[in-house]
């Protein structure tokens, strides 16, 4: 099971990103947990300056905006 964290202060783009990932994962039938991380100290610890950022199994894969659908497809592939 993949643990996907969406880093962001709770702005609209962060919500959109989390929903997009959850939906794509459901479509792909992959078992994922989507967590929203809003604590600024934790976000900074991943080195993210422009939110939303995406972390998969503790590895930063994206930051600076809502990811493209194709990117998300690649992340949630089983």
């Amino acid at each position, binding site marked *: 099971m993949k643990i996907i964290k969406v880093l*962001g202060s709770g702005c609209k783009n962060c919500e959109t990103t989390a929903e997009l990932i959850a939906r794509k994962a459901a479509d792909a039938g992959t078992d994922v947990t989507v967590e929203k991380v809003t604590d600024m100290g934790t976000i900074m610890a991943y080195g993210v300056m422009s939110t939303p950022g995406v972390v998969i199994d503790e590895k930063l894969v994206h930051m*600076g905006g809502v990811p493209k659908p194709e990117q998300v497809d690649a992340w949630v592939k089983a």
Partner: protein
Amino acid sequence: MSIHTQDPAGHAARPAWAWHAGVVAFVILWFAIYKQLPALSEWLTALLPVDRFSPTGEALAFFLYDAPKVIMLLALIVFAMGVVRSFFSPEKTRALLSGKREGVGNVMAASLGIVTPFCSCSAVPLFIGFVSAGVPLGVTFSFLIAAPMVNEVAVILLWGLVGWKVAVVYLIFGLGIAIVAGWVIGRFHLEGWLQDWVKEIHLGSAASALPEEDLTMIDRYRQGIASVRDIVGKIWIWILAGISLGAIIHGYVPQEAMVSIMGSGAWWSVPAAVVVGIPMYTNAAGIIPIVEALLDKGAALGTVLAFMMSVIALSLPEMLILRKVLTTRLIAVFVGVVGSGILMVGFLFNAIF
């Protein structure tokens, strides 16, 4: 890392030449329509059952001319800046600024503030990211002041609606305030006035883990289109509100009243404009149609510039966001320094013009 926004649905492989040709054709078409706008708005106003020279007629003509003009200007500029911004990122800007001396650093930070993609929802992580990577506090402030104040939307709308001279003045003095205010804040050495948890933050090693992507010119066009959809989609309502208010001022507020309140004779109008501007939260797109109408009715240039700068640079919501990282004392210094700069610009211009 650049801003990624969702792609348009049909983005199947279109050849590069088609994209370039499409962009050129779009720009030509844009200019052709733009040239016809005055005639178009007069024609539309004439269709309405009002006297063209009555206050209502004036207000309607103002609205019907300004609304399409502002939206068109905005679409073109936001697209162009979306393409330009794809060459910059907060990470690159930080790398350029870290360890820079104050002075040179302030100038660079204010200039980079214009072109670096920045959203006020990222202000906090960006602030911490800069400061913890060794960008001096004052230099960080120069960036944070310039980024919202001297943006392409403000400058181009001023150019289109009020005239190029005012736009250039705004650009130069907006940059000037960002540079000087940042430098002054730096001289105070207020690093101790950050919130405690900020001082303890250490950037994770993941900071450099993401490689820069290679973007093609087509990717950059796509980012331009995405930012048009994003920004124009978000602010059109503000623009229409601003233009409506501008139209009302244009049609109904008597010139003498405006001159007595906001004319250069009233010295207190500059500080009043700054104070009134702080709790107002709109963006450049909403405020400039109002600026145009105020100037048109005889308000003094310095007073209007001070009002506009105060609305954009000193916004209460942004201060509340920054409260997470700055102590109240530091925010007070920030407001004091930037406010004084705006006051000086206001008085200076009222004295000159």
